[in-house]
């Protein structure tokens, strides 16, 4: 079984989605079952979590040792991925401003 130590690879505070590409590179050509070990990681962005789950699902890897906020974030993103996404219907109109006077009037009038 191969274990990817994410903190060693990416640090404890992981933000950009593209960070997951490094995990993808690590697991290339690994045939055995893979464990993605999140020990010591203290923050993951939603975007990174989503990409991580895509990678894990694609190769049936297990994500382990998630803790605290990292566990909560990954659980939420995993749940969101499996649910039907409720998009806000775009129904209300756009305000159109035709000249600089109307721009000025708009900013003067908003609360």
């Amino acid at each position, binding site marked *: 079984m191969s274990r990817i130590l994410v903190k060693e690879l990416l640090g404890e505070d992981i933000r950009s989605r593209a960070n997951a590409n490094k995990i993808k590179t690590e697991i290339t050509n690994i045939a055995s079952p893979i464990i993605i070990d999140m020990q010591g990681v203290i923050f993951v962005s939603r975007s990174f979590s*989503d990409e991580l789950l895509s990678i894990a699902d694609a190769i049936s890897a297990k994500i382990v040792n998630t803790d605290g906020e990292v566990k909560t974030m990954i659980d939420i993103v995993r749940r969101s991925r499996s649910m039907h996404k409720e998009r806000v219907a775009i129904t209300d109109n756009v305000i159109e401003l035709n000249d600089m006077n109307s*721009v000025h009037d708009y900013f003067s009038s908003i609360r």
Partner: protein
Amino acid sequence: MMKSSIQIPSVSRDERIGSVFNQLFSIISKTELSEDDVVEWDFSETEFLHPFFIAPLSIYKQSCYKRIECCNKNSMVENYHRTISFDDTFKINDELQNDALNYFRGKTYTPIFSFPTNNVAISDKLEQIVQSIIQSQTEYGKSLQAPLSYILSEIVCNINQHSRAKHGYIYCQYLKKERTINICIADDGDGVLSSYIRTKLHLKDVLNDAIALKYANNGYSTKGLPERGFGLRTSRSILVNGLGGAYFMLSGNAFYRHQKDGEGAVLLPPNIIWDGTIVLLRIPIDIPKDFCLYNYLEN
């Protein structure tokens, strides 16, 4: 060589988020309409410039095809502009160390950072440093740490993922009286509408910049995958509904505002176009006692 002169006003307030653009659009419009090769920005009447004004002004200056010369700054303004790298922005590279910006920990502002968008290690490191500086400046409570990390990372990630920008920008200032962290995040990319045009998604409905901003801010991702499109929507929700802050996004010919009293998109007059995208975030440091980040992350 012909020069024209444009007065830069003192813009000290932005009570209705984005209202500084009232004056900024006027400056941009006069700069663009000038027939001269060189435009002078006259700072003789300038005392204080709100962070939501000064950062976009600097970013516009970087990318304007005309040569812009700044003049008549008093010593305080001159000194401040030099400190925050107003003329050229503070360029980040992979040699940046955490302690390189310790000077700013005792201030209430950061430099206007510029970072390359083709290196996520640099933008991630910059986010961490910016957040660390903000923490030193404001001593915000532990409960603001995670939401601030979330919002910063999602908005910067959008620059790297969608904008096709060469550069991203971050500027922060803490306004003590208001007890708000004011953050400007921007890029010099194609703009939100271009992202929909490029990916050919939702084009039946996305007919202009304002509709593009509505779609982008309400979860209609240009990646076309059902699990995408959460970043902006949840960040706005955390910021406005959760923390009581305010949000503004300008891209192309339109902007999108969201404050506690409402949200919506506005299409600007045809002669006002911003190349790229700017996001303004007003974040109160005193957050509601019952705030829980995770209440704002699901569908």
